[in-house]
């Protein structure tokens, strides 16, 4: 049971690596590319509690978490979200970490290769996840197209009061971009910053 996060506390009668607990948590961890070597499994209680509170308040809105190490923070937030929402997920992506720079690459590749449905799958997971974590925006040069994609995603999720979106970003001023849509994007992200 190498990938079971509950192995040291488990008191189930039998371990045959097929219990729902293992199936659902493993699926979500793999979907979000969190391996057993990730630092999110040994972080401080204060950090976990902070993100636990942020996720509790995430339903129906967009929140921005400022961090100097966006990759690590996104993984921790994703892990906390998985621990809260794995039960009953039935192998759906209830928690999804959308790496935005990768998402844009996949979309562009999909214009050329017709058989690859990665972009479509990422779009579906991002649209339907109960908790969506958006990271990697510090690796994107936001021009009109990049801004429109993200704004459209945020807008479509805000229509549902149960879906929460957390954007993990460096300081808003360090995000690179131009154009009228970019100023609108930074305005939305600035207003949604979660205070420490």
């Amino acid at each position, binding site marked *: 049971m190498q990938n079971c996060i*509950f192995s040291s506390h*488990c*008191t189930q009668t039998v371990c045959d690596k097929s219990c729902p607990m293992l199936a659902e948590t493993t699926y979500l961890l793999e979907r979000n590319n969190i391996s057993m070597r990730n630092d999110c*499994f040994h972080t401080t209680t204060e950090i976990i509690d902070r993100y636990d509170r942020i996720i509790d308040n995430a339903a129906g809105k967009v929140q921005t978490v400022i961090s100097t190490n966006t990759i690590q923070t996104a993984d921790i937030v994703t892990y906390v979200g998985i621990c809260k929402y794995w039960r009953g997920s039935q192998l759906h992506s209830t928690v999804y970490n959308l790496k935005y720079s990768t998402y844009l690459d996949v979309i562009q590749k999909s214009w050329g290769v017709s058989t690859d449905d990665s972009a479509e799958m990422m779009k579906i997971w991002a649209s339907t996840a109960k908790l969506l974590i958006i990271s990697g925006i510090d690796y994107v040069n936001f021009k009109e197209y990049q801004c429109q994609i993200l704004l459209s995603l945020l807008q479509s999720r805000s229509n549902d009061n149960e879906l929460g979106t957390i954007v993990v970003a460096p300081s808003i001023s360090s995000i690179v971009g131009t154009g009228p849509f970019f100023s609108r994007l930074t305005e939305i992200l600035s207003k949604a910053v979660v*205070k420490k």
Partner: protein
Amino acid sequence: MKLIYDSRNKIWCSEIPSKYGNKSWNVVVKIHQAHAAMMGQLSIEFKNTKKYKQHVVDLLNRMSCYILNNYTVPREWNHDRPLENVPEYEDEVMESTLGEYLLTVNGIGWDVDDHSVIESVLEKVDTSESSASVLHNTNNVSTEPAESISKDISSDNSEYSLHELEKAVKQTIVANNESAKKKKKQSRTSSVTFETPKTDLYIQPPKIPQFDYTRPWLQQQDGADLLTIYTSLPEIPTKQCDISVTTDVTKMTDSEKMRLYPNQLIHTRAPIMYEECPGIELHPKFGLIIPIDGFTREQILDNIIRYPHFYRLNRLIDNQAQSFYSLIEIDSELVSILDVWDNLPEAKIIPKKNEFVKEYIVRRYLLERDILHIEHKYPMFGTLDEFLTLFMPADDYIAEGYTNVVDIATKCINSRVSYKRSRNPIIRRLKLHNAELHI
């Protein structure tokens, strides 16, 4: 939305900690205690400005909002610094959570001394040129001595010498300072310690498990499966629910063990066990003492203290796990409790309800095992040792006669480790009861 406390029906500052509403008593107690600590600090620093009052109201509402949502105070919050680490909420969230109990600036009667005025008066007392402004500021302080002096001065048209004026103001300031010191002392004595949440006592896994993947505590190949148990974190548990199969009690100091005690009495039995029941004694602390034939009241009470908490008990019958609560062993025979309940002598007193039957079955089994030293033919699956859960402060254990509290804490850790190791499917699969690290 109509608020309970508004400009027509104000709640006084000093009353805020004692009035909140008709929420569940447990939540209300927590809100009261948090507000008491916060109001104690706020009254010391109070400034009679709109901005500061709004700040006070925001803090109180935010704390109430958190407790209502989470049934406990924030983990980072400390009663010694009650104004720090109060989680933030948007206005809409607070309004929807608190409803009519939302506090507003207009709904509070601000019967608190303005500490900034007291300080400014102190600075100006030595300056003879500013005696007029001192008189003006003194009028704003809402205490009887200040008001009475200012009234006397303002109503009496006779001229005061500068010396007499300074003397009067100094007397006022001294009185105000003493009043502020008294309130500060009262707030310190009335502030309560942070309550241990019930979730700290759970046996089930923590919601967000942490472990060190670089240190596998157990790793062994079994057929096609590589079975691994990683060392759980924190390695030195700070809460009872942190204790896992990898916890090593020999690495813990006495003070670390003592931290496992909760700081208030926590009810660990079913809620119905703390309600009155005709014919059964209700202990004010430990709940109903259900009668069990063949055992005295003191033995049963001792059993309740040693075993306050039952969680998913089973029997293994023909390698199948069966609930411990549905069968009872009588004279080495396993029978359904429903078939024999009416014939039991206690059935006349104990109600035939789920929680009572479960308690009866388990406690009778434990008493027979521990006191009569009966070796049951159909034993419980896994271990269940005494003091699995510490449910009251160490002082309370001492008051009940269990004086060796360090030893009890050690037993708690050993019991939990044994409980989990005896049931852990990986360890059992590898048939290792005293598991050792294999890499």
